[in-house]
């Protein structure tokens, strides 16, 4: 079983819509959860991370962790064409990052 499973997408939304991205993880001991963003022909970059359960907000981005259901979510409000990218969830396991497969998002102008 993969440590992190991610909804495969792709996702296409109109500008201004809310984007919802989801992952599940297998090990209840995981504590840190990250979201990376990867633009086309670039390496991933850390968008935000959360520790344990709850929400974290950064501008238009909100990361949410529900430890009871082992669910990780990222919401993008008022989406912009510049948000078009692949989003990867990740968690830390034994000092290694385990990534989901990524969801490609296209925001249509």
């Amino acid at each position, binding site marked *: 079983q993969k440590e992190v499973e*991610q909804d*495969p997408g792709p996702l296409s939304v109109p500008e201004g819509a809310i984007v919802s991205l989801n992952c599940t993880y297998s090990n209840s001991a995981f504590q*840190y959860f*990250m979201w990376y963003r990867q633009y086309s*022909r*670039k*390496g*991933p*970059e*850390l968008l935000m*991370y959360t520790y344990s359960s709850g929400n974290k907000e950064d501008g238009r981005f909100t990361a949410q962790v529900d430890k009871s259901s082992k669910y990780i979510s990222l919401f993008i409000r008022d989406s912009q064409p510049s948000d078009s990218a692949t989003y*990867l969830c990740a968690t*830390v396991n034994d*000092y*290694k*990052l385990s*990534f*989901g*497969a*990524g969801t490609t998002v296209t925001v249509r102008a």
Partner: protein
Amino acid sequence: DVKVTQSSRYLVKRTGEKVFLECVQDMDHENMFWYRQDPGLGLRLIYFSYDVKMKEKGDIPEGYSVSREKKERFSLILESASTNQTSMYLCASGTGTAFLEQFFGPGTRLTVL
């Protein structure tokens, strides 16, 4: 700004060739990583290094080796390239015990014919 550079953006090699992928970081990071990225599989860790001359196997080390002779440079070696090693290879670096934030290079698209 942290910069991680990789020696080539695109590389085409033949089956059986020895292939070297080079990665250099300029932020004095202790930790360096090599991943491969394939559609539907995401990023998978091949090897990582937490210090010069130190290395640890990741999830898919078979067919690969690494070398870290200097802190800023981490090399991935394919001893005898095979077609199933056609992939995007990403190098990353990070600092300290917080493996949360890793800084990635732009990737090398390797095609093995």
